[in-house]
């Protein structure tokens, strides 16, 4: 049983690993073959070297960014959920408020950075705010879609039992929306990482601390491209970790929603 699970685990992990190895080899090949300069596109060895040299710095920065991104993601998940609930309860609210949600989605952070800093301040809070703004919309859109796409038959069932609006929401719409919410979370968790990085461009953490956003700006300005790519790799790593966590949660939860006969 455990053995079996282990081998199955290997079967799941091995092919993507293999594929990654191929990608890295191809990357190395291209960089070597076309003699691409490291300041433009560093080869995998260059990036690896940068990682090894700057590992403590990268880890520290990634930890700080992860913290902000996680907070931003959780905030966007909860707020987005509440907004979606509001939208699902009132077409009027939906029609009236959607434009403002789109405003948040389409506003360049640089334009509202002074306001964010003024109202929320520099440091972690500001970074979290940016991460939140950037990762909010997918939660709203997907959760709203999930909450409003309930089968009419099930709505009838609840109407027959004179369920209150609240009961329809809690016992029907929300459970029905769970898969859609998880899809929204999959999108938002990556956005929360890039949001935290962008937030660091504008808000920072203070004099001594810094996250991946700082490293990215710095290494980019100084044309330290291998180091830049190492930082980007860490940001993608964060995205992957977040994504995997959401995916693991999904597959656990969704068993209940659409589990299949494994035969």
């Amino acid at each position, binding site marked *: 049983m455990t053995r079996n699970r282990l081998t199955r685990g290997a079967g799941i992990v091995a092919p993507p690993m293999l594929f990654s190895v191929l990608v890295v080899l191809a990357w190395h090949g291209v960089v070597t073959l076309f003699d691409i300069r*490291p300041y433009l596109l560093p080869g995998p060895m260059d990036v690896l070297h940068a990682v090894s040299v700057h590992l403590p710095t990268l880890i520290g920065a990634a930890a700080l960014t992860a913290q902000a991104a996680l907070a931003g993601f959780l905030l966007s998940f909860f707020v987005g959920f509440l907004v979606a609930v509001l939208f699902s309860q009132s077409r009027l609210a939906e029609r009236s408020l959607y434009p403002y949600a789109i405003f948040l989605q389409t506003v360049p952070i*640089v334009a509202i*950075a002074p306001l964010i*800093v003024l109202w929320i301040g520099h440091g972690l809070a500001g970074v979290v705010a940016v991460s939140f703004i950037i990762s909010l919309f997918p939660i709203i859109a997907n959760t709203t879609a999930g909450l409003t796409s309930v089968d009419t038959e099930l709505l009838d069932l609840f109407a027959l039992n004179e369920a209150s609006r609240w009961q329809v929401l809690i016992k029907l719409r929300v459970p029905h929306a769970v898969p859609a919410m998880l899809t929204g979370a999959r999108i938002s968790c990556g956005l929360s990482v890039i949001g935290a990085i962008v937030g660091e461009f504008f808000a920072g953490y203070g004099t001594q601390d810094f996250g991946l956003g700082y490293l990215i700006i710095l290494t980019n300005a100084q044309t330290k491209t291998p180091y830049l790519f190492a930082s980007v790799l860490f940001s993608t790593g964060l995205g992957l970790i977040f994504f995997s966590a959401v995916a693991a949660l999904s597959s656990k939860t969704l068993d209940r929603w659409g589990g299949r006969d494994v035969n």
Partner: protein
Amino acid sequence: GPQEAVEDGAPDGITRVKLALNWFPEAQHGGYYAAQLHGYYLEQHVEVEILGGGPDAPVVQRVATGQVEFGLTNADGVINARAAGAPIVALFAPYQINPRCIVVHESTGITRIEQLEDLTLALSQRPAFSHFLRKRFPFRNVTVVPYHGSVTPFLEDERFAMQGYVFSEPVVARRLGADARALMVADTGFNPYASVLIATETTVREHPALVAAVVGASRRGWSQYLDSPLATNQHIHSLNPEMDMEILAAGVELSRDLVLDEVAAAEGIGHMSRQRWQLLVEQMLEAEVIEAGQVQVEQCYSLEFLATPPSP
């Protein structure tokens, strides 16, 4: 001479090259636009297409990969590029004095960068000077926050200071009623040449006549621009309508002092010296922006094309 510039053999005898700016067109690019507008490049049988930049414009990479023949960056950018292995060479450096400054409220009474304390300082992590300053000065009780291009936070807070270009942020801040004072970074001794014309080693080696033509015409352009900037400013304004004539005019005023220092008066606009490159490399080493052995000072620049002063 001009004849040699035809070497690339375009049918009409004109060589076409591109020049990538490091920002949207503004006063710090004035000399190059003047050369273009007044036909100085064309007189040398070179047609220069000037490409505007933006906040994240990758100028060094574009030059290094040959997408454009020429570009503009600051001297510290050249050193960064060389440290990364990009064969970039500085050819011509109009700004002898770097226009970088720190803007403070006059009410703080601060008159020198060394005195910065008890305030919030918006400093981009991009340019080398910010690392130099932070290494060099104690900055007691100064909170360093990112800088993102707007003077709004400065207007809101007496104890707020920020980086800037002497002809941009202080002007904007004053126009909005603030008592802005510009403290020149160059006064601290960290003074990289600015708006430096760059090309690759290959271009310099294989097309010396072209390079000479462009440098010469640019030099003439700068001289012309500082003398009578109006036409050029109008041209810049037409390309970058959000850059108004007033700011451009102020920019020229301030640029005169930064471009035409004693050295330039003696040696001609755009002159560079080994000592200053050497000093800059040492300062960047001190700021830990580059590492020892990464950069050979001599390779950063070429004085070859500055030898003859421009014809008037």
